[in-house]
């Protein structure tokens, strides 16, 4: 006989959330520091936001408020939309799947999760910041406008929370399969890599935009669900009180729609927890008669330990999503950096060298990428030097063609001097070699565990400043170390066009040989320690 679930109030969810927050902090100074830092940041953002939103009122400028509020409101909602994507998997304390086995009515669960989301720091900070809009409305239009704006920002907060919860739950469902997660990671890398170019594009557009069209867009945005809650007070100020109920209705209908979508995805997110393992990856069986060895190795690989190590590493640069993301970022940066300066001051050659210094950074935590799988190489007793050489070779297989491309792009577009391409390539190789020489020992000495790649958006979590510092140092060091070659290029003039490539190549190779020797010896002494360092706990 089924027991009718007793009506559960939403307070247990609130207490649960507070308790999880508290227990997460217990006895962990680093976490407490992070929490305090987060609280301070949220507080500063709230104060800053309040000040920004209250400024139009202080200046008595309704016109600027009419532009600021809808855009800022839209940005806020967009931020709430992005938040679960960035922090997905970091805060899964109230993951719907955790409640799958409890006899809870869906309505209770929805209410509880929503309220729990409302009592977090982000919600409080958002509310505090948007309170500045109430301030402005009060100064411009008196208590009536303030009241309308207050209703507006509360509805706006509801909208923000509904958006973020619905997105979280939809993602929890969508990201169950490994392929979807891999795809999301790559997409995120592409988006992140193209932020720089996009920013320039946007700036260019803004330079050409005129004020009246901006005002028109703001007015239209004010009638969309993302802008409506933040403009109701201004409508009262402008004498359009009739717009207030209409806009609030728009927002509430949107919130209702989001909640409906959320409740549907929530059910799947909960059910998915039990069925996640049942979906089997497609068993791709292609019989082309190639034996296991030929399947692993490339046609040109030596059939030796080095060949196997390098082939595995090469496949990993493509198949492991974080590595592929790193390669994509490098490729975008490599082509983009010389291009930007090509159309600017003409320092393309200088910036191109930076690409040579950035390239080895992908190896700075090379043992962290595969995590405890390194145990295989350790259990078979691979000598340190062989390990280091094979990994560098696989990396160079992707990087050297890219550097050649950078040299060609720089030579053709930036200077319009195709004859400088070989010397430029030589300089890049010298920088890359010095960078490798510095990064390889760092990768042995300062290896650290990356989070388990089950969450595509936990890309950078776990890599604090302290962990990034050695690789940044290596990058600067690569440029300093390649300085003799750079200076030679500057001083020798036309002769350099002929000897630049051989000298750069020799310089880079010599630096690499030294670094690899050092890293190999270091690895021979520290193999178990490296394994322990990259094993996620």
């Amino acid at each position, binding site marked *: 006989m089924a027991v009718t679930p007793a009506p559960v109030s939403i307070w247990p969810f609130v207490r649960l959330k507070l308790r999880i927050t508290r227990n997460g902090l217990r006895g962990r100074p680093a976490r407490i520091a992070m929490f305090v830092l987060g609280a301070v940041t949220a507080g500063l953002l709230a104060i800053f936001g309040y000040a920004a939103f209250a400024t139009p009122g202080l200046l008595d400028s309704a016109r600027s408020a009419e532009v600021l509020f809808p855009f800022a409101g839209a940005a806020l909602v967009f931020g709430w939309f992005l938040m679960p994507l960035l922090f997905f998997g970091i805060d899964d304390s109230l993951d719907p799947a955790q409640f799958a086995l409890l006899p809870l009515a869906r309505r209770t669960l929805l209410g509880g999760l929503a309220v729990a989301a409302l009592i977090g720091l982000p919600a409080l900070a958002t509310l505090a910041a948007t309170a500045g809009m109430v301030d402005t409305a009060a100064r411009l239009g008196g208590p009536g406008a303030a009241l309308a704006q207050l209703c507006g920002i509360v509805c706006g907060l509801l909208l923000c929370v509904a958006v973020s919860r619905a997105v979280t739950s939809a993602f929890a469902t969508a990201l169950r399969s490994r392929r979807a997660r891999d795809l999301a990671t790559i997409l995120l890398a592409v988006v992140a890599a193209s932020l720089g170019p996009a920013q320039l594009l946007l700036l260019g557009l803004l330079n050409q935009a005129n004020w009246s069209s901006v005002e028109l867009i703001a007015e239209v945005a004010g009638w969309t669900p993302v802008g409506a809650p933040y403009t109701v007070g201004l409508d009262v100020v402008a004498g359009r009180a009739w717009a207030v109920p209409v806009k609030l209705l728009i927002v509430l209908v949107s919130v209702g729609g989001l909640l409906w979508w959320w409740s549907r995805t929530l059910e799947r997110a909960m059910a998915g927890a039990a069925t996640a393992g049942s979906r089997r990856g497609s068993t791709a069986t292609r*019989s082309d008669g190639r034996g296991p060895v030929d399947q692993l190795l490339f046609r040109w690989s030596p059939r030796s330990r080095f060949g196997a190590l390098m082939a595995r590493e090469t496949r990993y640069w493509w198949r492991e999503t974080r590595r592929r993301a790193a390669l994509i970022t490098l490729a975008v940066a490599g082509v983009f950096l010389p291009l930007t300066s090509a159309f600017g001051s003409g320092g393309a050659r200088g910036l191109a060298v930076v690409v040579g210094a950035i390239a080895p950074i992908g190896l700075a935590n090379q043992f962290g990428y595969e995590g405890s*799988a390194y145990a295989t190489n350790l259990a078979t*007793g*691979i000598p340190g030097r062989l390990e280091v050489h094979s990994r560098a070779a696989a990396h160079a297989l992707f990087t050297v063609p890219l550097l050649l491309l950078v040299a060609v792009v720089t030579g053709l577009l930036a200077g319009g001097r195709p004859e400088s391409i070989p010397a430029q390539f030589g300089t890049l190789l010298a920088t890359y070699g010095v960078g490798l020489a510095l990064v390889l020992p760092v990768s042995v000495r300062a290896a650290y565990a990356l989070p388990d790649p089950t969450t595509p958006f936990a890309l950078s979590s776990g890599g604090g400043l302290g962990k990034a510092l050695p690789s940044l140092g290596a990058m600067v060091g690569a440029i300093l170390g390649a300085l003799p070659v750079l200076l030679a290029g500057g001083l020798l003039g036309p002769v350099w066009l002929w000897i630049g490539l051989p000298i750069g190549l020799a310089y880079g190779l010599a630096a690499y040989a030294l670094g690899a020797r050092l890293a190999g010896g270091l690895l021979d002494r520290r193999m178990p320690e490296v394994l322990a360092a990259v094993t996620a706990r």
Partner: protein
Amino acid sequence: MYMSIPAQRLPGEGGTAAMSLRGLVKRFDARLAVSDLSLDVPAGSFYGLLGPNGAGKTTTLSMAVGLLRPDAGQALLLGYDVWQSPAEAKSLVGVLPDGVRMFDRLSGPELLAYHGLLRAMPAEVVDQRSRDLLDVLELGVDNRTLVVDYSAGMKKKIGLACALLHAPRLLVLDEPFEAVDPVSAALIRDILQRYVSGGGTVVFSSHVLEVVERLCSHVAIMSDGVLRMHGPLATIRGDRSLQDVFVQVVGGRVATGSELAWL
């Protein structure tokens, strides 16, 4: 069914233990994970290492095969010190670690080829043995699915195949039967039994007493990082069941019937 079985014991090696641990100690922060553990595994034995979760089984086996550096003590594999002469020791041993990832972005055949080539085996032998193992363990010779997408049981099987590939003299298996379905478990048992009867030595950890009781010639029981009992199965067991001995040694409680009366 072709399986490579290691050569019979070499002359002059008689009496050498296949695995010999001397005073191993490992400390994680303040916690003593393994405390002064000494154990001899006779060559040709089927040795089961038993213990509840967190007893230190994985830590012990990791130190024994050179994956974890002990704070003190020695580990000898077939007479070679795994920390002094790692190349010789590691070439004679096959390892299936637990809780450790494999290079799982390779397909099963690729992973086997990788292991074989790392062991410096000739490519033809790698191909031949890989096909045999994939066939026997029903993993599919032409299966291009990445190991990361394998089920838990298939992962165990491919891990075992990698450990067997170079026909080692000693197999060290951490929880080889965990998450394996009964049919595959029976297959793995058969393979291991044949391996031992051919002169190989198996050391494996488990907390499934039935498997240990059925397979092992020798048993060691650990809890809280201490080796509580070790020796031939018959001696350890006496006239009781292994279960009773285990629970008594480890110090677990046995339900008397008075608690949970409402169930």
